[in-house]
């Protein structure tokens, strides 16, 4: 069996729409040094580094090699993994496997983004097939909007239901000093914001953010070296189901799937951890919800409620701070979206929660956390973190 793995250090940079004070390598270094300081480590203590990006987002190829001066990997084993929007969770999983394999004890996982340096929608469009998708595609916004339109059609859910998520996550962000957006909004504010791609409005979408995040993943053999209690990784799983965008099935209310990859990944990871009632078993969740509608429909795909039950679940307050299972105490993707780091930030914030050091956004007595990553063609990554050793 593999080694048990824990997060033992967290570093998050200041996040904003433009970080002019640092270049890419320097923003990576800022996160790495914060993580090392948090873990009371030196660069010399790192066994290996794993980092990811989306090449055409930053115009940077071979990111692990390019960022070596800042990423801490100089004369160490260094690897790049990448899967688009879910790159951050892919990096986290890769760091988990680095340690679980028994090959390394202390591994640095890095996600970063300087969204300000390119045209985000133009860059995202290049993720899709040049022949079959790009001529008509409009990046993530329109790609998600067609799901939203169908969801409303199938369930009768409304734009106001979705706006609840946008309001909730941004309200949560007020508790998070690292969040990019600190704005208190109302459902009316969201409803009044202009359409980007009907039915998705400006207020429904995540921002573009410059920021970075670094985590230390450590083996059970060395967790006592660290000043903070470990946040254990209980399990990881993912599904990247679709190659052709035209195959993506957004689901019908009575069809076999609702959000295919998320349902398949949940089934996999829940069965390994023994989750049958996520709403009651998880104490909190950091979910990669890139737009508000995801916070309604995907809760159904994750099994927090039945199909079509999303609006009611939200309005019950169960996902608010103080509810049964607060979702995105950090403010989530709707408040900060440095794309290559976004999914890693979910893991970072869940780890802080498990370590009971999330400050004003702490969920009292949180012991079990769910994290997700989203990217590619409706792809899903999932990690479960725990306060107790699995």
């Amino acid at each position, binding site marked *: 069996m593999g080694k048990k793995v824990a997060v033992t250090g967290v570093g998050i940079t200041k996040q904003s729409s433009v970080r002019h004070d640092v270049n890419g390598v320097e923003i990576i*270094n800022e996160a790495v040094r914060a993580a090392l300081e948090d873990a009371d480590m030196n660069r010399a203590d790192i066994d290996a580094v794993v980092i990811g990006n989306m090449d055409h987002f930053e*115009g940077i190829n071979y990111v692990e090699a390019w960022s070596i001066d800042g990423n801490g990997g100089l004369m160490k084993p260094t690897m790049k993994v990448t899967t688009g929007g879910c790159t951050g969770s892919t990096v986290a999983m890769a760091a988990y496997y680095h340690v679980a394999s028994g090959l390394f004890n202390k591994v640095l996982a890095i996600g970063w983004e300087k969204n300000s340096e390119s045209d985000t929608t133009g860059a995202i469009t290049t993720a899709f097939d040049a022949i079959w998708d790009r001529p008509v595609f409009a990046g993530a916004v329109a790609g998600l909007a067609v799901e939203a339109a169908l969801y409303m059609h199938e369930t009768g859910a409304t734009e106001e239901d979705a706006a609840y998520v946008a309001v909730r996550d941004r309200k949560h962000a007020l508790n998070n000093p690292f969040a990019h957006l600190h704005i208190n909004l109302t459902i009316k504010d969201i409803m009044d914001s202009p359409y980007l791609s009907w039915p998705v409005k400006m207020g429904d979408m995540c921002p573009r953010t410059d920021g970075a995040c670094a985590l230390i993943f450590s083996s059970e053999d060395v967790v006592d070296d660290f000043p903070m209690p470990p946040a254990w990784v209980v399990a990881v799983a993912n599904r990247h189901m679709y190659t052709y965008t035209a195959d993506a099935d957004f689901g019908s209310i009575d069809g076999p799937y609702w959000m295919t990859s998320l349902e398949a990944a949940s089934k996999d990871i829940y069965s390994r951890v023994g989750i049958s009632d996520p709403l009651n078993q998880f104490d909190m969740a950091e979910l990669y919800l890139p737009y508000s509608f995801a916070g309604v429909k995907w809760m159904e795909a994750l099994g927090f409620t039945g199909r079509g039950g999303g609006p009611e679940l939200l309005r019950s307050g169960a996902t608010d701070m103080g509810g049964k299972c607060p979702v995105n105490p950090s403010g989530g993707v709707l408040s900060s979206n440095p794309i290559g780091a976004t999914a890693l930030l979910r893991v970072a914030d869940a780890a802080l929660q498990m370590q009971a050091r999330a400050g004003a956004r702490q969920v009292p007595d949180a012991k079990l956390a769910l994290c997700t990553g989203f990217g590619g063609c409706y792809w899903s990554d999932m990690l479960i973190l725990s306060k107790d050793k699995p």
Partner: protein
Amino acid sequence: MADWRDEVEPWVLESRIKVPYTWTAGETGSHYLLELKDNKKFWGTRCPQCKRIYHVPKRNCPECFTECTEWVELGPLGTLRDYTIMRKAEPRLHTLPVPFAYGVIFLDGSDTGFLHLLYEYEEADLAEGLRVEPVFAEERTGHILDVKYFRPAKAVS
């Protein structure tokens, strides 16, 4: 039965990825590039721990991970270490006509080399240890190519 796949005329989409980028040099890089632009001067940073002087400047020492806050003026002359003469033209990449050379140059005072172009040289002169001097562009914009290239130093220093 003949396989239809053998009969198909293959189609290829001639396209491109054309996304404009704006790479932020950051405070350290900006200071360096502005000094090139405004004063035709080269600056490096010194690591307070290992004392190594980095050119181009580093905000953080890649080895020690400490912040390099001390600026040190370097050059303008330097010494050539590695070099190669580029003979195969690629107009989409090259700012000089071939043959020109690439060199790794250690500016006087610097502990690290940096990549730049070499021009106005005799091929026989290119050697490790060659002293070189920068040729600045008339119009400078705050870019590494504000130095058009380096050439063998006229005066021996």
